[in-house]
Structure formats: C-alpha cells, structure tokens
C-alpha cells in the first residue's frame, strides 16, 4: 500500500517534471517492459535500436489498420505453425535479435513478397518470400546454403550449422510465414532452429515498435 502510493507519487512527479520540461525526450512513457525501454542488436556490424513510439495518441492508419481482409486467402492462422517450431511474441523476437542475430547465428525473415517488404518491415528483417522456399524454386538450395546449410559429398544438405530463423508475415491473417516454416521443414531444415512470430508486422506496428520506415524517419 505504502510502496504503491510512493510509486504513484513518484510517477506523478516524473510526469510533472516531463510536463514542466515540455517535450522531454528522455521521459520514455512508453517502454517495452518496465525494465526495458529499448532493444539494441547488431547485424553485420550495423547497430539497430528498437523502441516504441512515444506518441501516446498515435493510432495505426492505412494498410495495417485494416480489420477485414478477405478469407480466403487471408485466413486466421493457428498458434502452432508446425511440430517442434516454437511460436514467439514480441519480447521473444527482441530477445532473438539481441542474442542469435547479434551473434551471427540467426536471422529474422520477412516471408512476404518483395513489394510488401520494400514498403516497410521490422527493423533488421531480411526478405525471403515464402514462395522462394517452395519446392518449385530451383534455386532454393542456393538460399539454404546462404542460410548456413552445407552441402555434403553426397549432395544432401547438412543443417547442423544452419542459422536459427524467426519468420513472420503481415499478421495473424497471413499464411505466408507458416508456409515458409513448412517449406523449410520439407527441405530438411530442423524444426528446433525455426521460430514463428505469429503476430507479424501488424502486431509489431500495433504496439508502436520500430520498423524500417520509422527508423529511417527518426
């Protein structure tokens, strides 16, 4: 009781100070978690920082504010994309970026088409459209090799040192990421190296996390 009231007093003090200073940049009213205001990761020597939009009046507009895409094809996706593939939320995605991606052992893949990707994506994501992971793409092996698979003398692929991959698409209404996960498993990728961010770009944007667009405009 005492602690709680002390907390609220201090929060009031903080916000009062913020108001007093005016547009205080350091206020960080919108944090990722109580103890985490941003997540920093490096990708091939470049450093990226993800935080949340500080404008508490901000709402989504445009494509990602839409609620009712036609189903089919944009049908709601199950929680589990494939056997043995973990499903992640935003915090786990950030953890993945700070850990695996920063260590060069993982990649965040945007499985939507190239056009959608060029219109904006999660900061640090790499575009690998789900169709290019399908069996019809005769260059699929080249992509798998680039993701760290090794071709053995028999011609088979060894995924022992392949990267951990977190895949996402537009939102819970898009099957692209789940298709990509299943295409990779079908190609021999070990499920334990695969992760499914079901919320996708829409969930990411819906909580004001930094995208490639918002990062460049900052």
């Amino acid at each position, binding site marked *: 009781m005492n602690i709680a009231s002390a907390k609220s007093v201090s929060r009031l003090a903080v916000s009062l100070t913020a108001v007093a200073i005016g547009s205080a940049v350091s206020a960080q009213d919108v944090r990722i978690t109580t103890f985490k205001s941003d997540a920093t990761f490096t990708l091939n020597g470049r450093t990226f920082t993800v935080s949340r939009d500080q404008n508490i009046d901000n709402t989504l507009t445009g494509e990602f504010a839409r609620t009712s895409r036609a189903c089919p094809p944009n049908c709601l996706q199950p929680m589990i994309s494939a056997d043995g593939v973990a499903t992640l939320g935003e915090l786990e995605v950030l953890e993945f970026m700070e850990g695996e991606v920063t260590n060069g052992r993982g990649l965040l893949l945007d499985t939507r088409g190239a056009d959608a990707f060029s219109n904006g994506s999660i900061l640090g994501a*790499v575009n690998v*459209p789900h169709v*290019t992971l399908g069996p019809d793409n005769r260059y699929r092996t080249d992509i798998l*090799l680039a993701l760290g698979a090794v071709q053995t003398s028999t011609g088979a692929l060894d995924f022992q040192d392949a990267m951990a991959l977190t895949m996402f698409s537009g939102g819970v209404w898009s099957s692209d990421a789940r298709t990509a996960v299943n295409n990779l498993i079908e190609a021999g990728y070990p499920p334990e190296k695969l992760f499914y961010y079901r919320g996708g770009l829409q969930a990411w944007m819906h909580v004001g996390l930094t995208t490639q667009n918002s990062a460049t405009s900052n």
Partner: protein
Amino acid sequence: MIRTTVALFAFALVLCGLIIFRPFADGEVDTADRLGAPVDIEVTRAFAPDIDALVRATEATTPTATPAVAPTAIVQAPRRVDVARPDTDDTRLSDMTNNVLAELGFAGVEPVTTNSQLQRQSTSDILAGIEAATGQHSVLDERDSFEAIVIAALRAGETDESIDRIVNEAAANGVAVPEILVTSDGRVDTSVMLTNIVTQAQMAAGAAAPAIPEVSPDDVQGMEVRIVQRANDDVEARFYTVQSGDSLGAISIKFFGVITHYEEIFEANKGLLSSPDRIRVGQRLVIPQI
C-alpha cells in the same frame, strides 16, 4: 420422487435399446446392422463389371463426344504406369526458342525474360539481402540452363542425334526442361524442339506460320474421327491416342503445324492431364477444333 425419475430413466433406456437393436426384427438383417456393415456392398460389386460393359457399349454404339472422354479415364486408370520424368519448369518453349535464336544472332529476334530468369533474379536479390545481414558472401550456383545447353550444342554444330543425347543427359542430371517437350516415355522431345527452332527462325525471317496440316486417321496412327450429332448439325470430333514417344508439343505440331496450340489441347483434356508434361501412352485425348 427420485425413484420415479430413475424408473422413467430406466424405461427410456430400455426403449432406446429396443429402437437401436431391434431384437424382435429379422435376425439376419439385425447382425448386419449392428456391425455397421453397409448392406448394399454386394450390390456395388455386382454393378462394377456392369459399368465397364456399359462403357464398352457406349463406345461401340453411340458415338457422342461427351461421354467418350470420361469412360476413357475410367478404363485407363488401372494401367497407370508412371515413368520417371525430367524436371520441368514453367518456361515456355516459344520463349526459350526465342532466346536461343536471339543468342545465335538472328536478326529481329529480341530476347525475352523467361520465368526461369525471373526466378533466378529474385533468388539473387534474396541472397544479396542475406549477405547484407550476415556478411557471408554467397554465389548463386551457375547451373547450365536448358537454353544454354541447347545454344552450346547448336553452336558446336552437333548432329540431331548427339543433340538428343546431350539434352537427355542434361535432363537426367536435373536440368529443367519446358513441359511440352516431355514425352510419354519420360524423355525430352528433341525433334519437336529442333523443329520449333526452325519454324520460329523462319517466322522471324518473315515466313508465314506453317499451315494446319491435313490429317486423317489413315495416315496418323492413333487418330479417330467420329461424327457427333448435335441439335442442328453434325460435328466431327477428333481423338488421338497417345503413342510411345509423343510429347504435347509433338501432338500440337501433328494436328496444327505449330507448338503453340498445345494450350488448347491441354485445356480440352484437363480432366485427363494434370499438367502438360504428364502425358501417358494410351491416353485418349480430344483434339479441339481451332
């Protein structure tokens, strides 16, 4: 109160049991019912040979176009032997030939972008993206395309026989070929490929497209012509039974002089062909009127 309820419940149970198991009904039927075995299974068996007989009768007596296609499928299903087929892609033979001619320096032939090249382009974009993220340089495997193999063979002045050997070896090693070049034996139809190169070269030089050949069942093995009676007039329906070594491209040339009408043939036989490279010996195809 409770006793009454229990008694009523028990009565209801007994009633349900009586309805479900019908102990006073005819014993034989009863057992069949309880096992859930469909009583009419015998009837189906008895009917099966009848359908075949019916098909044969239909084929023999009433020459109508529509039922003729469906029975063929029924009759042929058991004979389905799948041969190993070369990999295919959705590169159109006409596009590929066009690029072969452009590469060989034919005047007035501009190269076009084939689906295979588009796929290669998008893959190299993806690799560039991955490289930017990982710093690991990856090279797109320089595999010979079917197009490049054909160009090299033509440049080297190989004979038709050795071109046939070269392209079939390439296909056996996983090089994808255009769908309509796949024969019913699972080989690459080199003769259609070469014929089409000549045809497209002549057309590029200003010659008219080859005329639609006159074909009759007398000189084309496997061809049948039937007169179908329609409301106002009689229509000639043509059928062709796939022979060993036929590709869809070859059938198109046989009946229309050029490969391009394979699309109409494929469309007319969609019930039989899952894709243009899936033709099998003995399939009876409808040859549409163009």
